[in-house]
């Protein structure tokens, strides 16, 4: 561990908060229909878009109609993306956008990939530079990076309206929300972010792959592509699907320490801002600060554990006689699967950030993290990604936990639970409970299928080992990640076998592709329905003034209660599985 390592972590938290506060106020204005500084520029395109899609944005929707619009929109996106990746080499794809003549992916891996991008997961059984054309990356995947993130934010905004609303049944208009999200939030930040990344060396071109002849007489082929435009929304929308196979570890995606910082900020800035937006829209900013405090506390704890564990080095390194302490001019630690320019702290921080959110981008190989270091991403996922979480998904999942905590707190002190003046009753608690439990259920069920069946075990890597803790960790991580719509991986786990670049002669692993695909769809859309149902149930309730007996939800006591609820639900659900994989490895120096 080094001073600069800890400084990176602290300064990151400070800069993040400084950026998220103003963005939160800005977004609160966007979702309550107030003028913002971009309105003069974007008002006209916004109205044009409503006309083009033939909708009346002012028409309020109840929760069922809101959910219906969201589901239809996602289905449309799913179908278009499937069409695009299955016809990669069709006649209408210009040669410039498929310079290497790649064929289409197989049906099973395409099902997995498409489900993964539509659900904001971006789980990748395929490898970008050897399977996807520039056309698929740009017209297909980039678009879903925008809209899947946008849909999550819409749901969060709708839930907040339900919680704080006094207007009866409506929780907003989905078409208005999605258009505003893209025009006022995602596109402007993406454009600024992409230009910053370009200035630092992230590539963006449509050239064919380069062939270099090195000074020692070898040849090297170098993959190219329109990277910067996708890179920025990959982070900003907590999507995480890398243009290249190795994601943000690739020098063309993440060329230096500065871009690493920028990308980490892009990942967390919207999830953090949404918490402040909630406080603003609730007309009580302290509500937001309390939740922010809870998230930041748990986040910094996770980062610290990961950093200490990775700085210590791995049992395999020590057994091989490698010294992993800091020496002059070297950071030491478990640098296996990590880049020199990010070092231990920059890698531990990045991978913690992308696993507390639903991003799942990585700048280092999680499979090569030490047992305890690798347990941190798993623990983050086990907490159902409420520590900041994905764009929108994080806040709405956390608000379900808040509702649960209000209910439990109410029971403990023997009063009718109230949240921002609204009575919490059986219906809301049931819906919230179901919404919270679906993701763990999907993760554990699929993991059990993955390790208990022969077809499932076929995906475990040779290095991981079918009957070894690492093999179990790979499987568990795969389904935990897909159920949480995260997309990071112990990347040895495989669902696609490709002997040559370009998909010719390749085949998917049907069992893993379908199990994962359905897992992602179920764990994305079922909770969204419950969340919108909660929003609908709350929207119609009367607001009673707070009295002396009201339990407050904006003070440190409540924050501690909330942490307790999150940790308890996560720990009770996942502890047995965590023990079998990473914790076993973390507690021994034994090699398998």
């Amino acid at each position: 561990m080094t001073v600069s390592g800890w400084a990176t972590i602290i300064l990151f938290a400070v800069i993040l908060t400084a950026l998220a506060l103003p963005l939160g106020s800005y977004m609160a204005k966007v979702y309550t229909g107030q003028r913002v500084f971009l309105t003069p520029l974007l008002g006209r395109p916004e109205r044009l878009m409503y006309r083009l899609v033939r909708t009346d944005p002012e028409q309020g929707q109840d929760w069922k109609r809101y959910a219906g619009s969201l589901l239809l929109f996602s289905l449309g996106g799913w179908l278009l993306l499937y069409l695009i990746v299955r016809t990669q080499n069709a006649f209408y794809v210009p040669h410039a956008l498929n310079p290497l003549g790649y064929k289409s992916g197989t049906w099973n891996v395409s099902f997995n990939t498409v489900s993964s991008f539509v659900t904001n997961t971006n789980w990748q059984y395929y490898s970008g530079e050897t399977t996807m054309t520039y056309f698929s990356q740009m017209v297909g995947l980039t678009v879903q990076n925008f809209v899947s993130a946008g849909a999550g934010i819409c749901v969060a905004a709708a839930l907040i309206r339900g919680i704080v609303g006094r207007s009866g049944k409506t929780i907003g208009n989905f078409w208005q929300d999605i258009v505003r999200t893209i025009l006022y939030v995602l596109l402007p930040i993406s454009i600024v972010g992409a230009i910053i990344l370009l200035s630092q060396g992230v590539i963006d071109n449509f050239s064919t792959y380069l062939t270099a002849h090195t000074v020692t007489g070898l040849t090297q082929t170098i993959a190219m592509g329109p990277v910067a435009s996708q890179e920025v929304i990959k982070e900003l929308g907590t999507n995480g699907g890398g243009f290249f196979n190795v994601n943000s570890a690739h020098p063309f995606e993440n060329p230096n320490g500065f871009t690493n910082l920028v990308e980490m900020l892009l990942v967390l800035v919207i999830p953090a801002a949404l918490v402040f937006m909630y406080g603003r829209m609730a007309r009580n900013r302290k509500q937001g600060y309390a939740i922010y405090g809870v998230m930041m506390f748990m986040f910094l704890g996770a980062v610290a554990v990961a950093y200490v564990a990775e700085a210590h080095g791995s049992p395999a390194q020590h057994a091989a006689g490698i010294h992993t302490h800091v020496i002059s001019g070297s950071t030491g630690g478990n640098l296996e699967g990590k880049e020199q320019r990010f070092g231990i702290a920059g890698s531990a921080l990045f991978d913690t950030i992308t696993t507390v959110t639903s991003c799942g981008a990585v700048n280092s190989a999680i499979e090569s993290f030490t047992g305890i270091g690798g347990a941190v991403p798993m623990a983050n996922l086990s907490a159902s990604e409420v520590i900041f979480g994905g764009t929108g998904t994080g806040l709405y999942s956390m608000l379900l936990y808040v509702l649960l905590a209000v209910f439990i707190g109410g029971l403990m002190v023997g009063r009718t639970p109230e949240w921002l003046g609204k009575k919490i009753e059986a219906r809301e608690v049931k819906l919230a409970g179901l919404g919270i439990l679906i993701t763990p259920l999907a993760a554990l069920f699929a993991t059990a299928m993955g390790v208990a069946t022969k077809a499932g075990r076929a995906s475990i890597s040779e290095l991981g080992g079918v009957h070894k803790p690492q093999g179990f960790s790979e499987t568990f991580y795969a389904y935990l990640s897909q159920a949480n719509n995260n997309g990071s991986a112990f990347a040895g786990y495989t669902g696609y076998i490709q002997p040559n670049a370009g998909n010719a002669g390749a085949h998917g692993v049907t069992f893993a592709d379908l199990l994962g695909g359905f897992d992602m769809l179920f764990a994305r859309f079922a909770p969204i329905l419950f969340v919108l149902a909660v929003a609908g149930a709350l929207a119609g309730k009367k607001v009673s003034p707070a009295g002396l007996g009201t339990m407050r939800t904006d003070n440190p006591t409540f924050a501690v209660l909330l942490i307790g609820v999150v940790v308890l639900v996560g720990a009770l659900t996942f502890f047995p599985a965590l023990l079998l994989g990473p914790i076993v490895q973390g507690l021994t120096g034994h090699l398998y």
Partner: protein
Amino acid sequence: MRREIVTSILAVLVITVLCGILYPLFIAGVGQVAFPGNANGQKVYVNGRLVGSKIIGQSFRRPVLEKNGKPKEEEEEIVTEADPRYFQSRPSATEGGEYNAAASTFSNRGPNNKSTEEADAEYLKEYLEREKPYDTGLTAAAVPVDAVSTSASNLDPQISKANALIQAHRVAAVRRLPLSQVESLISKYTSGRGLGFSGEPGVDVLELNLALDRLTGGSA
């Protein structure tokens, strides 16, 4: 209901045009106009020949030649050995040979795997065998971790300064340069941390090696 379906289809199409065509083309345009070097991959040429990208790591091993002058092959892969005139990059385990930048891959070596230990021990042995004849005091305790582990991308363009300073002994001896001159070149091609705190300093291997070639003449 029908109205909603029509709106959904139109919305998917309109947003695809906006985010999938207009936005990426705009960004690509900005890249090509404002940052053409970066946007096209920071290509490095020597005497008009493309030798690599400034920020993509590459191998500085050379083909082992048979007696007839042809490169030796085993199982359809060219056999290579470290070229002693050059600083060596980190170990790389991309498929299809080291530093295959057409197909980046993680090595996915587990922290408690026997196979990881074996690979690490092999890297350590090779490194000591290569550098110890020139840096006689070198022990395993002084070998920095980056020299004996694969990176995340397996395309890491950098090595640590500690690693470079050890290799400097060999490079200086083989090229008959004063050690201090090689060391000052290392400092010249060491990049700092982002904003002074983010990340770790590293030495750009390709640029350093090309600077050495310019100094003493290389194979290029």
